[in-house]
């Protein structure tokens, strides 16, 4: 489904984000990417979203070269990928409900569908009581659940979570990981980057370890080893 082909990303000659990464991810996989800060985890995700272009190498999403796409097609591709960030990145002027509805609106879904799906997904992440609260009125865990709801509302083929638990306490972390697992069980490919040893060890799924822009380990049932 996803294939990184000898991807190199150099910011300057000295600052290298990715140094020859070749990686393939199958549909329905749950892949965790671990590594120290600056190992290249986030850069890898950015390549996949076409937020940034590689210096050399190619990234394929279902055999389509992402970086050869036009701006319009990149927009369409992004609608098939759900993303969750460490810092949530909700739209501050929109309520929890509107943040989730926005993702459906941009995909061109009709109002009737939005009115039916959003309450349902809010229920799923246990936030229907906070539907009309703005992000600044929600706790960190609640915000991250809104972000996840937004990421999965369009039933994406791929969910990318970039250190989603980085700003959360252990109980919220556990909850978020459970939600990600459930999403994966329902058939969505999940890529998770994290620092959290506990999260990785409890998952028992594939672990890719990165260091200095390179993949140094790839274990199909991995533990956190650094």
């Amino acid at each position, binding site marked *: 489904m996803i294939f990184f082909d000898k991807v190199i990303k150099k910011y300057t000659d000295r600052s290298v984000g990715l140094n020859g990464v070749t990686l393939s991810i199958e549909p329905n996989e749950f892949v965790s990417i671990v590594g120290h800060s600056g190992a290249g985890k986030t850069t890898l995700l950015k390549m996949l979203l076409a937020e940034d272009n590689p210096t050399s190498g190619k990234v394929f999403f279902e055999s389509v070269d992402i970086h050869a796409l036009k701006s319009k097609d990149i927009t369409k591709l992004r609608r098939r990928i759900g993303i969750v960030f460490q810092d949530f*990145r909700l739209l501050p002027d929109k309520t929890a409900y509107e943040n989730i509805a926005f993702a459906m609106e941009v995909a061109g879904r009709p109002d009737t569908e939005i009115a039916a799906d959003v309450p349902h997904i809010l229920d799923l992440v246990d936030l229907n009581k906070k539907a009309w609260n703005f992000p600044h009125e929600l706790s960190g865990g609640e915000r991250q659940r809104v972000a996840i709801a937004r990421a999965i509302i369009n039933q994406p083929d791929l969910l990318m979570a970039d250190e989603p638990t980085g700003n959360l306490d252990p109980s919220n972390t556990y909850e978020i990981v459970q939600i990600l697992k459930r999403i994966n069980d329902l058939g969505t490919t999940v890529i998770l980057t994290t620092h959290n040893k506990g999260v990785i060890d409890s998952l028992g799924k594939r672990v890719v370890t990165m260091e200095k822009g390179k993949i140094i380990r790839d274990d199909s049932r991995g533990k956190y080893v650094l």
Partner: protein
Amino acid sequence: MIFQNIRRILRWGAIGFMRNGTVSFSSVLVMTIALLMIGSTMLMSTFLHATLDSVEDKIDINVYFSVDAVEEDMTELQRNLEYLATVESVTYVSKEEALVEFKARHENDELTIQALKELDENPLRARLNIKAFSPEQYDSIAAIFNEGSATLQEYDTGFIDKVNYRDNRLVIDRMTNIIDGVEKGGVVITFALILISVLITFNTIRLAIYISKEEIGVMRLVGAGKHYIRGPFIIEGVIYGVVSAIITVVLFYPITLTIKKHTEELFGGIDLFKYYVSNFMEIFLIILVSGIALGAVSSFLAVRKYLKK
């Protein structure tokens, strides 16, 4: 799909305007000032043109005849003058008419009326009022009445008592110069002010959108198309323009009324308030279109910067 998007863009624009109260307020405030500048320039130039016209209209040459001039001679001179290509009109004012005018002008002045009654005969002189087609033609017309000119030689010496042109001319020249200067200087100053206020408006809107810089990035990552992101910001800019235009035209009521009160005695020419009220729709449209264009273009340019990726 398109209508659905347009409806959503309009709705988000309106919601954005309401939710960002402080930002909207300051944008509207700044834009109102810009629109006041544009409106004032329009009103000012109309006002100055009208004043200049009415002052120019007041220029004429008054030829006063001697008390015992014969009426036929005077009307003959009137006819001769009317033949001139430069002369627009020549009005003959007889002694009697001059007396009626004089009485009317001094009707509240008992003493003068009393003094007039004491006199046995009408002390006023008959005259010709000559109007030229354009102000610069008066010099050549006035030259006819210079001593020893060909026209005058046909009449008795002393037939013409006084030509009242030089005196008026001086005052009128000075007025024309002042108005001209004010207009030229005014145009430069108001254009500078308009430019400054437009730039300030643009910057205010740019700052308002700068705050949303990260939001725009998130929208992109969620898969929003460029139009869908840009749309609500442009609608917000348009709303700034509409609200500011309404505030501006409302403010012009007391402004023109005050100007009218202070200037109506100065120049009889134009009532700015009346002009404003009777041309309201036209002025409102110009201000409204300026406001909408200013808001929409500012928003468009400001968002474009963050949409490049």
